[in-house]
């Protein structure tokens, strides 16, 4: 399925190495596809809005299919779907970015720092994380956003981040606990390094792959969460995101009226972007857990005896 140039031993070593250059994942087809799609969509979101017309402009050709003037047809009120899609991509990616960064900070703070210093700090941080984890997120988000009448993209993102960081923090805590007990950390401590230096220079580099994968998850979660929230009519209704596009498409009976060009593209872009990020995450996972890499399979296969060999071996045993 995949071919890589490193053997598992080196990969494991490079994941452990503190030099970030070597912990970059090897360029597999999976990773390349993921980066290509995610990069393409990101570029579309950054550049396209400069070239398309006003997404809110109303025309008198409503619900027209894809044709010359409009690449992706028009909405019920004659707005250009392609222009909306461009702005929506930008909006949704902004949500993903904000939530990703916030999740990174929140989960690193509560997950890594607590686990490293231990004691009551760890106890309280871990209790807080676990409580946040079991309190159901979406209902909380719905209730919070129902109290705030004017919602911006920023607010929706902050709410999504607050309700979504706990899972990552728990994963990070588990891994930090195992890293801090390794011998080289103890050696650093004995040699008198300051706690912050140990945390930043000795421990953090080991956590980079894990942090990266958690952030990627957070971005997927955020984009899907925002879409769900907008679909329920509780998102940032004034701005363009994939979610609000779908909301207006659903309210305009896009499917019932056969206007697939209005309903399908935003959902498809979400799915593509999510799938691309998932592919990137697979590659990161293979660094974190070298057992998942395909070489291990090849190595294991070479250990296995063929049926004939097995028969010969058992025969010898019997003899």
């Amino acid at each position, binding site marked *: 399925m995949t071919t890589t140039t490193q053997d598992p031993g080196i990969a494991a070593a490079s994941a452990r190495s503190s030099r970030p250059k070597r912990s970059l994942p090897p360029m597999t087809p999976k990773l390349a596809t993921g980066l290509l799609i995610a990069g393409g969509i990101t570029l579309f979101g950054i550049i396209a809005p400069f070239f398309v017309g006003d997404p809110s402009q109303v025309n008198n050709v409503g619900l027209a299919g894809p044709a010359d003037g409009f690449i992706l047809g028009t909405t019920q009120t004659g707005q250009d779907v392609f222009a909306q899609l461009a702005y929506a991509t930008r909006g949704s990616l902004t949500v993903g970015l904000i939530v990703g960064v916030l999740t990174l900070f929140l989960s690193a703070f509560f997950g890594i720092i607590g686990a490293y210093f231990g004691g009551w700090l760890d106890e309280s941080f871990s209790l807080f994380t676990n*409580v946040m984890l079991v*309190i159901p*997120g*979406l209902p909380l988000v719905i209730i919070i956003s129902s109290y705030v009448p004017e919602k911006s993209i920023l607010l929706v993102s902050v709410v999504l981040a607050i309700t979504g960081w706990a899972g990552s923090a728990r994963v990070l805590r588990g891994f930090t606990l195992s890293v801090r007990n390794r011998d080289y950390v103890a050696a650093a401590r004995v040699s008198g390094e300051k706690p912050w230096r140990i945390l930043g220079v000795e421990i953090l580099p080991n956590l980079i792959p894990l942090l990266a994968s958690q952030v990627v998850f957070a971005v*997927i979660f955020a984009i899907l969460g925002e879409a769900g929230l907008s679909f329920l009519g509780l998102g940032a209704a004034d701005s363009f995101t994939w979610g609000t596009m779908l909301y207006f498409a659903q309210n305009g009976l896009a499917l019932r009226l056969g206007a697939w060009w209005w309903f399908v593209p935003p959902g498809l872009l979400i799915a593509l972007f*999510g799938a691309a990020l*998932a592919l990137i995450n697979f590659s990161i996972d293979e660094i974190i857990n070298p057992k*998942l890499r395909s070489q291990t399979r090849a190595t294991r296969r070479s*250990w296995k005896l063929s049926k004939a060999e097995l028969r010969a071996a058992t025969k010898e045993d019997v003899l």
Partner: protein
Amino acid sequence: MKYILQKLGFYLVAFWAALTVNFFLPRLLPGNPVDIMLAKLAQRGPVTPEAREAVELLLGTNTQAPLVVQYWQYLGKLFTLDLGTSVAFFPASVTDIIGQTLPWTVGLIGIATVISFVLGVGLGMLAGWKRGSWLDNLIPVTTMLQSVPYFWLALILLFVLGGMWDLFPLNGGYNVYEVSPGWNWAFIGSVIYYGTLPALTIVISSVGGWMLGMRNMMVSTLSDDYILTAEAKGLRPMRIMTTYAARNAVLPSVAGFAISLGFVVAGSIVTEAVFSYPGIGSALLNAVGSNDYSLMQGLFLVITLSVLGANLLVDLLYSIIDPRTRARN
């Protein structure tokens, strides 16, 4: 025993935290329920000061008592199960509405989740066992299904299977015209018929996650030494797969099941919105739509309580199937 007490203690703290969030959120957030409601009323005509008083009385925000006192009153009311009266479904009490809607959600979402879990873990086991097989190569596809927005997929399936081909009903929990609720076969059959499509969409969109998780754990477990020993002993592959590898590989999935329960309830809101299913999610959306704050608080409470309860149950179960969790303490 100590483990059980610890867990009980944790969930008590979590429950208290949820109660407190539930109490302070409306009071700390910028939007004031009274103002929001009055703004809606003002669209229909001028609002008199009496109307404002009436709304304040209705929402229970007319007291001048300090927050701490209100907090104690709130906790006291909870223990007597007095959650107030619903505005959206006046004059039904919040407790009544919860009682009516909860069984629908638990039935539909609960069964769909269990099916998805069993199916995903089973398929993941097979995929991890035979790496590189067609089933294993199917995993990226199912994971992609997971990045499809759930409601988008559900709406398309609803449109195709319900609208174009007319295989399934478009909305509702049972056929309101022909059967009446009760323990008879006609009603149960109707419920199953109406629940199949929602359940199907839930299974399709969530099975991939279980598959991937189980497959990865299975792969990790299979490279452990004791599996090699088992192979060397000449045990049948079937036995190695089920009792040696899968039994240990399934543990994180079981733990994940507990965490996912929270997302299940969350997802139910969207499911019920798409299918107009008469469950707790629809009630929550109704409450949000009509600014029914006591119903919102009550539903949030019930959702939290059921998620916490399910988590506690899985935690206790986990301590039985994996003795190491008890030993660690």
